[in-house]
């Protein structure tokens, strides 16, 4: 049997490589914080042997704005414009979860139409985030034009968000008690046009990326995550689904109106960077289909907001809860503790990147070729702001 000569690589003891930097055999290299491999800022402290990574430490903190601390000093209604900033490419999950936690602790039920509009907003934001991701993923493998196509189409989606909420990136559309607006006139037609454009784009991406021999040679077999690693590292979302597990918060613990929608959990089996791409690629079609299903339930004449007490003096009874939703990266959650005052006692934001980009990436990256580091990072789809809320 062929056994490669690895005598020049460091000796591994108890799963950790023994590295003596002074020996001159290794190179310490920083990848990031400004790097196309991730959306946002984080950096990897890599130790390279030849062209292979032998050790990695993730460094975060370049984006820390102290949201969790800020929220403790603001009234419940003052926090809703803050939370969306925790995840830039997909802010709506934060908006929904913050509103849902406040509503649960305050005992507020929101109108059905508001729930449909929230579901629409969540799916539109998933699609927008996937478009950003697929552009970055293609870019990390040297397929530059796909990034430009995808970001253009993301911009078409942002146009729709702007119509709906007035904001392109941060929408502040979902507020405690309901949503801010009904859909503008003719929105359905413009949304359908955009969805058709995105479907056409996805067809082109299939030809130039999914069937691209060079891309496949690099992505197939890269960053394989075994079944055993899934729970050991707390892996969720498309990464877990690409390993063959049927785990989707929208199905497992349905929220909003997802139980009234017809969809299946999308799975893969091979659990490498290419399989994760396939799962997310199919989830983009799923999002488009879900948006079309949701649009059949939108009715502009119905109530979209519950009457709240005076929000500037709004006291919420003492309690604690955890609410969660399926973002493009997997289970996203808000843990909120209240103490009966006008301010939340503690808000903790659980972002999937927290485990994917730190504990998982640090172990998965070992023995990966230096040129594939960015591709591996994007295949885990991490958004650093949610690591350092």
């Amino acid at each position, binding site marked *: 049997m062929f056994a490669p000569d690895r005598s020049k690589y460091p000796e591994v003891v108890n799963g950790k490589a023994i590295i003596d930097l002074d020996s001159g055999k290794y190179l310490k290299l920083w990848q990031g914080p400004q790097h196309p491999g991730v959306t946002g800022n984080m950096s990897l402290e890599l130790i390279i042997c030849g062209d292979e990574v032998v050790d990695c430490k993730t460094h975060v903190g370049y984006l820390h704005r102290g949201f969790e601390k800020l929220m403790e000093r603001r009234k419940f209604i003052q926090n809703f414009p803050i939370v969306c900033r925790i995840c830039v490419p997909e802010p709506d999950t934060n908006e929904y979860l913050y509103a849902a936690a406040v509503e649960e602790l305050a005992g507020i039920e929101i109108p059905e139409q508001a729930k449909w509009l929230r579901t629409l907003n969540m799916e539109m934001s998933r699609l927008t985030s996937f478009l950003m991701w697929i552009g970055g993923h293609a870019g990390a493998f040297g397929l530059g034009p796909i990034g430009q196509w995808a970001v253009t189409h993301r911009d078409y989606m942002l146009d729709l968000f702007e119509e709906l909420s007035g904001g392109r990136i941060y929408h502040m559309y979902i507020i405690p008690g309901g949503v801010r607006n009904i859909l503008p006139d003719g929105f359905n037609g413009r949304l359908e046009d955009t969805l058709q454009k995105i479907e056409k784009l996805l067809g082109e991406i299939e030809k130039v990326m999914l069937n691209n021999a060079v891309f496949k040679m690099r992505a197939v077999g890269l960053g394989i995550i075994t079944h055993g690693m899934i729970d050991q590292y707390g892996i969720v979302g498309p990464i877990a689904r690409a390993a063959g597990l049927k785990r989707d918060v929208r199905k497992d613990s349905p929220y909003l109106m997802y139980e009234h929608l017809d969809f299946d959990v999308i799975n893969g089996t091979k659990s490498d960077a290419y399989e994760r791409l396939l799962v997310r690629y199919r989830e983009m079609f799923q999002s488009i289909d879900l948006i079309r299903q949701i649009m059949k339930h939108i009715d502009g004449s119905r109530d979209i907001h519950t009457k709240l007490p005076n929000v500037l003096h709004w006291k919420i009874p003492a309690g604690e809860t955890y609410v969660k939703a399926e973002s493009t990266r997997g289970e996203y*959650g808000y843990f909120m*503790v209240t103490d009966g005052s006008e301010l939340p006692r503690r808000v903790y934001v659980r972002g999937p990147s927290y485990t994917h980009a730190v504990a998982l990436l640090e172990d998965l990256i070992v023995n990966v070729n230096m040129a594939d580091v960015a591709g591996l990072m994007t295949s885990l789809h991490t958004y650093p702001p949610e690591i350092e809320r």
Partner: protein
Amino acid sequence: MKEIIQRLKQQFAISNVNQQRGDLTFLTVKQEQAVALITYLRDFEIFTHMVFLTAVDRIEDNQFQLTYMLHNYAIHQDLGIRVMTDREKAEMASIHHLWKQAGTYQRELKEMFGIDFPGSPRVDESFILEGWDNIPPMRRDFDTKKYSEETYFPRPGRESHDPETYMKSKLYPEGDA
């Protein structure tokens, strides 16, 4: 979920069981039994997914409340385990041997709340804040405004107003309406 709680009650000193929703329950366990309870839940009750670990500063009781959130994929239930620890000597046994990502959570808690987890990997390395020289910033007694006023200086040429009186004078220039 009720059967699981019953089984837990037979083996551990648990209290304050609160079913918040159909799929979410909280309970409190004594600090010395916490790691045994979490290990039991992971290995025997299939709560295999560690969702998060975080802390709440209960400064009025001079305690920290640690919350371990576990999830069972078979019955789709979340279980929040509260552990109270003394605020003055904040220390808790590490669970990094149970889940790989636990070390990251513990490292952040050490930095942000000053809760120590002896033996946890790289727990003393800074996670987000580099060169921090004050009390851990997520503690309730850390005053962000005072810190920034002391650390950073205001740029000259900028006016500042008390928001309440300034808005009043803008909205009602003739006096109180």
